[in-house]
Every structure is written in C-alpha cells, then in structure tokens.
C-alpha cells in the first residue's frame, strides 16, 4: 500500500488548488448556493473539458484519463476544501456506477460524454429515511418502466443521466436489484430541489411515474454491485470531507493568531492551542483513513468494504467536531451569517448523515470485520 502521494498526484492537487482558489472563492460559493441550478456552467466546462477532472477515473478506452480512485480522491478533497458548487461528486458517482455495472457497449456510449463534462450524471439510490443499505430499495422496475420515489439525489435537477437503482419484479423469481439509466428530461419524471441546511450542495427528490428506463449491464441481480458502488460513494465523500475539515483547521489557526483578547492573540491561550492540536489530530487521522481507503479502491483491495465504513465514520466525526470547535473558537462572529464558518459547518452536518451516519457505518464496520 502506498502511503505518500507521488509526484503526478501532487501535481494534480496543485492544479486543482490553483483552479479552485481562483474559481471557487467564498464569494462565488455564496452566489451559487442561492441559485436554483447551484453551479456555474462556465466553471464546469473549464474543470471538465479543459482540466479533465470529470475524466479522471474513467478508462482511456472511454475517453477518460485512466487514472484511479486515488486521484479522484484528491479532487474530492480539494473541492471539499473550497466547497465548490458543482455536480462533480454526482457525476463521478454516476460514472462509477456505470463503470461498475454497464456492458462494454454501454460504457462506450455513455462514458465519453461524462468524461468531457458534456453530460452531468448522478446516482439515485436512497428512498425512505434512515436506510442506506441495499435492502432499502422499493422503487420498482417492471418492463423497464420505473415507479417510485428517490430521495437525496445529488444534483438530480440538472443531471442528464440518472442512474437509478430499482427493484425488478419478474415472474416466478424473487426480486432482484438492477441499475437503470433514465434521461434527466424523461416524461413522467418529476424533479424537485429540496431544502437542506447546506445550500452549497443541491439535493433533489425524484418522483418516477411510469418512467421509461434502460437496464444497464444485463438482467442479473446487481445487489453486490450496489454495495460496491455505495462503498465507493462513501469513500469519495470521506475524501471530500477531510478537505473541508482541513480548511476549517487552517482557518481556525489563522483566526486564533489574529484575534486579540486580553492583550494577547487568543491563539496564545492554552485552551485554544489544545483545541487546535486536537483538531489537527482529528483531521490527520481522518485523512489517513480517507487516503488509505481511496488507495485501496484504486487497487481493488479486498478490505475495501471495511475501509469504506471506517473512512466515512472517521471523516464524519472529525469534520463535525472540527466544525463545532471552529465556530466555538471564532466566538459570536462564528455564529453570524457573514462569517464563512457556517458554510462548512452545514456541509459537515449534511455530510455526516449523507450516505449513512457514523453509527450506521460503525455497526457495518464490525459486521464486515467479523466476516
């Protein structure tokens, strides 16, 4: 297992940092979070067609760069750091799902447009609240017509390709799980952006009433593929989260050096110092897990499922603790709308419960460790 980033990876990170510092300063985040579509198409075009970020982990055969989930993790991290408002996580996970389940010809058809950013993709799995496992799918697919409701769909309102996980009902057999492709403008599909505490990331509710869909990757049960896809989603989110957490640590340390109370920088008070040391510990431990899991994903490590749970749980708790301490150390100003801290706090809170909360992942971690 690789425990440092190589030079190409460092280069990729540097490129991403430069681009994001330029294109996603907080003023842009604040502007875009108030819009309905939630992203800037010009920036999207730049990061996809110019920089190739959307092509990262897509094999070269399908117009991608042929890099791995490790590189994708770097991009998630940097986007999490700057709270980039863009359908990147959605599209990357959509692509991941297609790569996991689709046939060669389906991949050849779908992935090139995703790689260039021409098409925005997303993944629609979750339905009723509190259930993130593979057993929670109730949306039905019968004769390739979908009926049901998907919730918490990332950027569903702007996605061109929606990869929908459905329960297929066939004759004489038990239900199976299948992946379906639905076009964003398919008749019978109602898409609605829901209100969340984190308006930098658009979540949607999708209602399917007899919507035409295409089964991807044949008719076998795809439960195992779903579990794998969800693990990769959790790892992706974990990497995004540690980026945000690191931003808050940096921000807190800077603020503590500048802010004067009682004739000293508050960063010279031990209470603040020790909190910052603990924040650093939190973020570095969470990073180690997120990096390790992303690297494992790149090398198809058999331990991957355990690592997905571990990385997501570690990142969730670290990010939340850090976000709460960051506000606390900022004091009253940290609770105001004009201070940027709350943008990350809200991202931390929504990410904590997205793709399964820490107790869900911990329980699953032990289950998987036992087997």
């Amino acid at each position, binding site marked *: 297992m690789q425990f440092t980033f190589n030079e190409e990876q460092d280069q990729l990170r540097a490129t991403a940092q430069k681009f994001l510092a330029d294109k996603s300063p907080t003023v842009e985040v604040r502007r875009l979070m108030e819009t309905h579509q939630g992203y800037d198409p010009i920036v999207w075009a730049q990061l996809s067609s110019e920089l190739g970020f959307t092509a990262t982990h897509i094999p070269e055969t399908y117009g991608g760069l042929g890099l791995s989930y490790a590189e994708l993790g770097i991009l998630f991290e940097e986007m999490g750091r700057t709270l980039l408002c863009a359908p990147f996580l959605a599209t990357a996970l959509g692509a991941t799902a297609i790569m996991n389940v689709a046939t060669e010809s389906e991949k050849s058809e779908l992935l090139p447009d995703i790689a260039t950013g021409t098409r925005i993709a997303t993944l629609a799995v*979750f339905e009723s*609240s*509190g259930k*993130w496992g593979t057993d929670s799918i109730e949306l039905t697919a019968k004769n390739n017509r979908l009926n049901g409701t998907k919730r*918490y769909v990332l950027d569903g309102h702007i996605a061109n390709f929606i990869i929908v996980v459905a329960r297929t009902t066939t004759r004489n057999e038990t239900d199976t799980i299948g992946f379906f492709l639905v076009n964003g403008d398919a008749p019978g599909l109602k898409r609605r952006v*829901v*209100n*969340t*505490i*984190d308006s930098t990331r658009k*979540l949607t*509710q999708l209602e399917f009433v007899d919507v035409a869909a295409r089964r991807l990757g044949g008719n076998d049960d795809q439960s195992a593929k779903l579990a794998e896809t969800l693990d990769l989603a959790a790892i992706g989110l974990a990497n995004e989260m540690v980026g945000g957490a690191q931003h808050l640590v940096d921000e807190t340390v800077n603020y503590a050096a500048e*802010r*004067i*109370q*009682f*004739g*000293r*920088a508050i960063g010279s*008070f031990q*209470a*603040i110092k020790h909190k910052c040391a603990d924040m650093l510990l939190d973020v570095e431990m969470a990073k180690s897990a997120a990096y390790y899991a992303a690297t494992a994903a790149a090398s198809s490590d058999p331990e991957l499922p355990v690592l997905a749970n571990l990385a997501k749980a570690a990142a969730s708790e670290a990010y939340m603790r850090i976000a*709460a301490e960051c*506000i*606390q150390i900022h*004091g*009253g*100003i*940290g*609770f*105001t*709308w*004009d*201070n940027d*801290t*709350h943008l990350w*706090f*809200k991202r931390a*809170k*929504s990410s*904590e*419960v*997205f793709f399964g*909360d820490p*107790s869900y992942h911990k*329980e699953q971690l032990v289950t998987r460790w036992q087997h």
Partner: protein
Amino acid sequence: MQPLDGEKLRNELRLWLESNWDPNASLIEWRSKLAESGWGMPTWPSQWFGKDLSLVLNPIVDEEFARINAVTVARSGIRLLAAATILEHGDDSQKSRYLRRILTGEDTWCQLFSEPGSGSDLAGAITRADFDGSQWIINGQKVWTTSAHHADYGLLLARTDWEAPKHDGLSYFVIDMRQPGVNVHPLKQMNGHASFNQVFFTDAVVAPEDQVDRIGNGWKVAMTTLMHERRSADALRSVYRDRDLEGRIYDEERDETATVMEPYKWYPQRAGRVDLVFERAIETGKIDDPVVRQAIAELMIKARTAEWTARRARAAQQQGRPQGPEGSLGKLAASHVARQASKVHTMISGSDSMLGDEDGPLAGLIAEILISVPATSIAGGTDEIQRNIIAERVLGMPKEPRMDTGPFRDVMKNPGPAAP
C-alpha cells in the same frame, strides 16, 4: 413580626387593586398609576416610584398581581437593567428623567457593551467618547445589541481615557438612539434569524447630564448592569400570559410582549429541545435502537442533573445560605445538554436531519436545532470564559499572567478606531 406585616401588606394591596385595577384601561394609563402609587416596584425607594419594601415581602405583591391577572410595570427586555443601573449609579436628574417612562413601557432601551473587537474581553472596548467642551462625541461600533432597532435609549460603555489601565478608562452613558449619528443594522445569524444588531456611532452626541457616575467608573457601572442581566434571565421565561384574558390592557400587553420576545423565538432550538427527543424517537421507531437509547439516556442524565443542580443553587439562595459551586455551572451544563440534544436529534432523524423548512422533520425544526445549538456555548460568555471563571473564582485556582495591564493605549488590541 413578618407574617403580620405580610398580611397587612396583602390587605392594603388588595384594597388598592380592587379600587384601581381595570383590564380595560390603557397600558400606559395603568402603569402610570402603578408608578405613582409605588405598587409597580415596591422594593424601590419611596422617593423613586417605590415603597421601600423589603425583598422578603415582595413575593406577596407578585402573588396578588398574579391572583387577579393584573398587569405589572414593564419588566421585559433591557428596561429593568437600565432602571436598576440608573437607580444605583444615576443622579437625581437622571432618575427623574428616565425611571418613570421605563416603568410605563413608554421608552425602550438597549445595552451597548460588546464590540466586534471585544467579546469575551468586554473591558477591551474601544468605542470612544470625547468631550468637545460642551458634549460627548461618540465614535465606534457596538454589536450583539438586542432590540437596538426599537430602542429609544442605550446604555453605553465607552472609552474616555486611553492612558489609564484598561478597566479604568471606561465611562458609562445614556445615549439617545434616535439621532442621526446612530445607525442600527440587523446582524443575521447562521440559522437565518437576526436577533441582534450592530450599532454604528459616527459623531453621535451625549449631553453631559447623561454621563452616569463619574468618568473612569464605567466598568463598575457596567458590572451592575450585567449582574442584573443574570438575575433577570429567569424572568424571560415567565413573560407569557394566558391568551384568553380579555380587555384592552391585555391586547396592548400582548403586542408589547410579541415585540420584545421576537429576537428570542429560536432560543428553544438553541437549547436543543430536549422536550422533543422522546417523542421523535418513538415517532421514528429509533426508540428501539440500543445505540440511540444510550444516547437518549445520556441526554436525560445531562438534562435532569442540570435542572437539579440549578434547583440546588436556587434552594440555597432562598434559604439565605452561601451559594456552593453548583451556582456557577448552569451555563456549562446547558452547553452539554444542547450539544447532546443536537447529537441525539441527528441520530434519530438520520439523513432527514439535514432537510429544512417544509421538507424537514417537524417543518424544519430539527434542522433549525442543529444550526442553532452552536450559539449555546458562546452567547453570554463562551464555555472557555465560563471555565476560567469557575476555575479562578469558584475553585480559587491561580490566575494566568496578565498581558493587558498598563496604559490601555499600549495594550495589544484588534484593529478599530485608534487612540487620538
């Protein structure tokens, strides 16, 4: 002899109320009567709208008012802090100008202490008051000012001497908020509410007769205000009156209460809404999850021990015993309760806890809890300041070396209006 005095007092007040209380009077009319008679603030001195009543007997007065639902003098918001401060530190002219209209509710007040550069370190204020020969000229900025946009007057802490040590260079003023040099802007919070204001002073003026106590004694006067603020925190809870009562005076009082309470409407969410936890856990079925049950139990332990600890403190106070350490722990305990409640709500509502407004559980209330709780451990003194106070004042631990002694001009401070 007290029981006898008490009975006498009760009878006297009953008689007075019987002949004067009128639910259809106007609020100001009735409160003017209260102020003149001394029944509005009977523990105040008799020359200033009071009756020199001992504190011990005061509960009888409250009982009699409550018994017939008689409206009291205006007690909400910053008013009574202003009155208590003026009563203790003001001169006769100030008392006669301000106290009466405070009691009738005709004037609204606000408190102008905190600044962007001095939060935990209140005495580090750099809003300046300079005497131009005929009046005080005020420049600077205050923040976290509740109801400044309604206020007629403000209690202002400002620096008048930059050569004196930090605490000795402050003076205390009453400032007319309705003047061109005073600009009030709402301060929006991360939960979307705007309970507070920022107040900007640009060559605002204060007449010499509105200087309270002597120059350089502002910190001491401010301490009086803050002491009363802590005492009156409880009073906020009991301000709501039965909605069914009929009469012009109740309508007017309800309007007044609604205005005063507006900034506080998210406070229950800030406190974590422990009341909702069991209900939500049952509703969602999470009550059967052993992990959630542990978290609920932890919350119940924190919430109930906090409540009992507060009652221990109150009981000791009521018996006139010296307060033990338990009296200083309420704020820290409240932070723990709120944080744990936020954690439990998140566990119970799961992914739904990020949904707001009509999409979220209880029409967004859960989400509002989660983004309001961070205020609990900051407002009114951060947990860190609380721990300092507990360690140094309650446990008597040795103080930290101070870096803010000597002339305030030379003390390191945040950027802001410079010394002249």
